[in-house]
């Protein structure tokens, strides 16, 4: 009994180590996929917002950044901090290319796992855990570099508690992303357009979470709807917690909402996987 109870976490740790070895075996691939990942969109946002606030300031007869021009409740310095927060937060979000389950299903490589006495999902949880541990280190490094380079503009958390709350929300949201991408990958039992669906889902999650525009800067109706979904609590809300725009009450509300969606997604994941297995033909064997 004890041995069996110990086996699951041991296997999870072994899977983490295995995933880590897979990720670091090619140095260029590691740098591009794991380190540069999630840094381009914030740079684009910075460019767009500078132009927008510049236009708004010019219309108001002011210079960029010198006066607090506000768009949708956000000033230019706040938006700069938001973008800085986004660079760090995006590093922690499990991304759509991080699983290769669809390929494994298409090519019949799932077959080997079906005769093994373990939950196949553990290997993917190992991937999630490995991704999170590695990205925590990368995110910390990115924050340090950003702070050293531009301390006046960089986002400095208002408190340790806010940092922990933001971290919890980001990781819970990241696990929701992981579950969604697992489900979409599992659609490979039926479909051959999984890659397109993943790209679409990644964009929708990013947009509805605030990866392009803070959700709280959107029109009130959009904000009302999007603030119910986990993407908002994974991107915009944690950054606002770090900035002190949201407090502990908001964190608790968000954690409850995301936890509910996480459970629902996990149930859906189990259902899709079971249905998919019943259709599996073990191609290529």
């Amino acid at each position, binding site marked *: 009994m004890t041995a069996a109870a110990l086996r699951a976490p041991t296997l999870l740790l072994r899977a983490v180590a295995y995933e880590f*070895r897979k990720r670091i075996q090619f140095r260029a691939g590691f740098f591009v996929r794991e380190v540069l990942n999630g840094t381009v969109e914030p740079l684009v946002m910075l460019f767009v917002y500078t132009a927008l606030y510049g236009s708004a300031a010019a219309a108001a007869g002011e210079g960029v950044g010198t006066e607090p021009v506000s768009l949708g409740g956000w000033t230019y310095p706040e938006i700069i901090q938001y973008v800085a927060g986004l660079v760090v937060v995006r590093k922690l979000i499990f991304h759509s290319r991080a699983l290769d389950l669809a390929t494994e299903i298409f090519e019949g*490589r799932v*077959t*080997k796992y079906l005769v093994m006495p373990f939950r196949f999902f553990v290997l993917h949880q190992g991937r999630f855990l490995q991704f999170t541990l590695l990205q925590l280190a990368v995110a910390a490094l990115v924050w340090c570099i950003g702070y050293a380079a531009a301390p006046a503009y960089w986002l400095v958390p208002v408190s340790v508690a806010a940092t922990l709350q933001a971290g919890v929300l980001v990781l819970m949201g990241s696990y929701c992303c992981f579950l969604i991408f697992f489900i979409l990958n599992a659609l490979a039992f039926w479909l051959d357009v999984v890659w397109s669906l993943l790209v679409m889902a990644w964009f929708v999650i990013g947009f509805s979470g605030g990866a392009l525009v803070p959700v709280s800067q959107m029109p009130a109706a959009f904000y009302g709807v999007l603030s119910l979904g986990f993407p908002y609590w994974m991107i915009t809300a944690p950054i606002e917690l770090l900035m002190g725009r949201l407090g502990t009450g908001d964190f608790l509300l968000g954690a409850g909402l995301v936890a509910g969606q996480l459970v629902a997604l996990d149930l859906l994941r189990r259902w899709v996987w079971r249905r998919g297995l019943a259709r599996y033909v073990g191609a290529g064997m």
Partner: protein
Amino acid sequence: MSVASGTKPSGADGGPVLEARGVRKVFRTFERVPGLRGILKNFVAREHVDIAALDGVDLRVERGESVGLIGANGAGKTTLVKILAGIVPASSGEARLLGRDSFDLRDAEKRRLALVMGQKSQLWWDLPPIDSFRLLKEIYGVSDADFAERLARFASMLEVEDRLKIQLRQLSLGQRMKMEIIGAFLHSPEVVFLDEPTIGLDLISRETIRRFLVGLSEQRAVTFVLTSHDLEDIEETCRRIVVLDQGAVAFDGGLTDLSQRVTGKRAVEVHVHPNARVDEEALVAELSRHGAELAGRSAGSLTVIVSAERLAELVPRLFAMLDVKDLSVERQPLERLIREIYRRGIDAAGGGEG
């Protein structure tokens, strides 16, 4: 007829290790109509067709049996393995492994099972085999001592001790397959499915793997189900043969039974001068007097099939009738008999059950 070689208890209740009763498997696909109109038609309204890969297969395998599953491409042998191993469900009928529905195996049964796929890697492509083996050790809950002992023994038997730390993708095909086999046996399984385990391998690798399988079968009464197009694999590792043809069992019997039919016949290859005149009518008549038949004919050679007992009386007659340059006698190849089974069914191939 089956050859039950083990005497130890079998499945969960002492029953068979593997059992298929009336197993059918139907795959649904749609017909693709050619041409532009066909493409549009396929897009709007598809016509589905059902293809029966297995059509009522009955099979019972006892503990310690080594069963060779053979058949032409598309005969259904891999589908049957997938169903028995619990990878895909049967459309109808019943498949049981170790006393339990194959498609509803618990970890307890899976721990006693292994699958080796010649065309699909069981191990992790990006890792050295030793890392994959350690992961398998955790998955199967193998103790440290057993793991170390088995790994050392199997690596030595398969002669790959110095390749364990090299990334799998950098190993040769033969070395990879040996690693696959080590990985499959680390948890000491009782039932092993091997699907084309020697495909594409050189002679030496094939022989090493066969020796390994035979050795384990003799030591531990492991139950093997082996599918292969290489009949030497089957001959050297299995005592029972199941021939599948168009999704049904065409022959199920002991290898000794089949071998008697094979070894009871001889193929006589007679080389004659290319320009020599052969009175074929007289030759066929003479052959039939000795219970022989003319199986093949080219410009410079004839192939005659005759029973071993009547070989001695036939050969002098061949020398008397033909301008013989050379003559060789060989056992009738198993391939030939199997081909006959595919072509005409077992009755025509020499009578028997099925």
